[in-house]
């Protein structure tokens, strides 16, 4: 219609104005309507109002074609913008679509679908192949592989058998599972994750708040500049119409939407992308702080190491190796200490307790037992000193357990905590990201701690710390770090909730476990892979880079068009581009945050 008008209609005069008013009204009636309604509500400086003034102004200055076309361009841009926002919103929520819609329960031999919220603890549910596990529970019957990727980002499926725990939100790929529910839906893993992610939008980053504040000043400022431009130069130089037209360009650019949309969208995308990798970030502000991390402090046990003790060396003296292990295992067979458990595991058979005549636990030292008539003492160096046995230390790092038979030294067994496969990689990845300092805190002995730190390539290690000492150490590190950089503490959430909340960013891992840790941490890792820390930092940096790009791009284009417009080089077309065009580009750029992990 516009094209036809351009060909047939007269260029000027009231007939032209009338003819162009028709398409203008068709295209832009809702803008005009909203503008009028919002003014009635006392909302000036609203984008509809600004567009209306600009286009009506263009009519008034005789630029009929421009007025109608600019309105068209604006409406198309708005449409693109809402499509882009809608699409990104959907793709982010698709990532978080782990909410189970039903649970199968057996009632009188018939399977019925129930709302997961109505299932009680202790109920038995059936999970068919291909279904999402609706509630946390223990497998009673059946065997299958479970896809945990929606929660942990881990692509390798996990095999579950009767007795294994299953976590809600995962997908059962093969096999029929009968599961006994252990937690109500409200406390299940899936409900907690959803709550955490949904709340993340309310913790806004500084950049977001800055943009909101900026927008409040920006629009009125540009409008007054437009007014000044329309009035002041013509007083001295004349040419009212020209300057009025330039002022109208200002009005079109004055909407801050590109910024107001793209900045939160970037953070939201970054949080969504991270959650796909099993990294739950509690808010945009934490991504912002994380991107500045300069010091990363790790707890040792359970974070860098598996937290499972294993026999790593058996050094017998005067008796065969197998016999030493056997004696130690028999002596420890009534003990519940983790060390005793690991020795028993190493023996690999159930000890025949009938040959144990007497058993005595010596707190803090070890055990004393009579096995087949021999007195066997198993314990630390203090115990050996106490019974007057000459012992010698071991060159292996770890906890050394000595054994003596009838007062003669029989050798020792070394028990140590295994490093996680990805720990070394985690530390070197942090270095590669430019994290200046990596620190390890541990309650273990100095020898064990320093050995572990050396093998991992950590910069600093503090050993023999009680949980309270850890808070103190973190305080110390906080006061000594460079200004502007952030301190990240990574722990498994057991006993370290105070440290998690004290650090600039607290990262809790293996979050399926501790509620206190989820509460105290700012970022939660769904699995217990320390390499995810570096990944989280990378995602945060990429997100922040995209935020900065968008701010600079949007402001840059707007400033350029404002200046060119004031000088008479930019048309109203350029102004519409600087408004909606920039918004669309910024939204598309923000969507890259979703793939920040790649």
């Amino acid at each position, binding site marked *: 219609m516009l094209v036809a008008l351009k060909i047939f209609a007269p260029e000027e005069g009231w007939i032209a104005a009338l003819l162009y008013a028709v398409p203008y009204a068709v295209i832009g009636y809702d803008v005009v309507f909203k503008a009028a309604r919002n003014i009635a*509500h006392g909302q000036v400086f609203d984008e509809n109002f600004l567009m209306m003034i600009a286009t009506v102004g263009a009519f008034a200055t005789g630029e009929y074609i421009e007025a109608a076309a600019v309105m068209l361009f604006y409406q198309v841009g708005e449409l693109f913008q*809402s499509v882009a926002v809608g699409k990104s919103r959907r793709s982010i929520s698709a990532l978080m679509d782990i909410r189970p819609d039903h649970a199968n329960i057996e009632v009188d031999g018939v399977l019925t679908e129930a709302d997961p919220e109505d299932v009680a603890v202790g109920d038995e549910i059936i999970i068919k192949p291909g279904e999402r596990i609706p509630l946390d529970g223990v497998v009673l019957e059946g065997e299958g592989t479970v896809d945990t990727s929606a929660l942990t980002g881990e692509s390798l499926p996990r095999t579950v058998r009767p007795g294994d725990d299953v976590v809600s939100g995962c997908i059962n790929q093969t096999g029929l599972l009968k599961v006994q529910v252990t937690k109500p839906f409200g406390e299940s893993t899936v409900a907690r994750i959803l709550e955490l992610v949904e709340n993340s939008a309310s913790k806004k980053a500084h950049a977001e708040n800055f943009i909101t504040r900026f927008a409040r000043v920006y629009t009125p400022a540009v409008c007054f500049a437009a007014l000044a431009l329309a009035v002041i130069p013509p007083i001295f130089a004349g040419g009212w119409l020209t300057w009025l037209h330039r002022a109208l360009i200002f009005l079109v650019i004055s909407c801050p939407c590109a910024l107001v949309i793209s900045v939160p969208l970037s953070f939201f995308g970054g949080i969504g992308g991270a959650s796909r990798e099993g990294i739950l970030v509690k808010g945009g502000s934490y991504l912002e702080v994380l991107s500045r991390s300069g010091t990363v402090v790790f707890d040792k046990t359970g974070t860098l190491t598996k937290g499972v003790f294993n026999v790593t060396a058996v050094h017998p003296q005067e008796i065969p190796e197998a016999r030493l292990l056997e004696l130690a295992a028999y002596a420890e067979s009534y003990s519940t200490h983790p060390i005793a458990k690991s020795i028993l595991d190493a023996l690999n058979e159930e000890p025949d307790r009938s040959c144990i005549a007497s058993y005595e636990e010596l707190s803090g030292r070890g055990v004393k037992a009579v096995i087949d008539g021999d007195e066997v003492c198993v314990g630390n160096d203090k115990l050996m000193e106490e019974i007057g046995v000459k012992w010698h230390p071991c060159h292996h790092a770890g906890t050394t357990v000595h054994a003596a038979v009838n007062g003669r030294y029989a050798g020792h067994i070394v028990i140590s905590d295994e490093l996680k496969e990805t720990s070394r990689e985690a530390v070197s990845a942090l270095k590669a990201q430019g994290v200046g300092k990596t620190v390890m805190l541990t309650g273990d002995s100095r020898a064990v701690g320093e050995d572990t730190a050396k093998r991992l390539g950590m910069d600093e290690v503090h050993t023999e710390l009680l949980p309270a000492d850890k808070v103190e150490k973190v305080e110390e590190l906080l006061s000594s770090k460079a200004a502007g950089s952030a301190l990240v503490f990574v722990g498994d959430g057991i006993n370290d909730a105070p440290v998690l909340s004290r650090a600039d960013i607290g990262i809790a891992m293996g979050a399926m476990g501790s509620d206190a840790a989820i509460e105290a941490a700012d970022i939660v890792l769904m699995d217990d892979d320390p390499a995810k820390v570096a990944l989280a930092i990378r995602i945060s940096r990429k997100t922040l880079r995209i935020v900065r790009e968008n701010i600079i791009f949007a402001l840059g284009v707007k400033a350029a068009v404002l200046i060119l417009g004031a000088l008479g080089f930019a048309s109203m077309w350029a102004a519409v581009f600087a408004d909606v065009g920039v918004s669309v580009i910024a939204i598309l750029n923000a969507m890259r945050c979703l793939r920040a992990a790649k």
Partner: protein
Amino acid sequence: MKKTFKLDELDCANCGAKMETAIKKIDGVKDCSVSFMTQKLTLEADDDKFDGILAQAVKICRKIEPDCEIVIK
């Protein structure tokens, strides 16, 4: 008390920001956040005044963006 409400038809990011600022100014509001992305309003306010504050927030919302509605469950 802290409650989250869904916002229907919030299609202008700047309006969301304006609502947030305006609602924060209501007497008794501890914190308020409007998320354009999740289309949600989080309101934290004194327990005893909560209903009154919510009614005011609904009014503000209607004034700033008449198309947008706070869904009260």
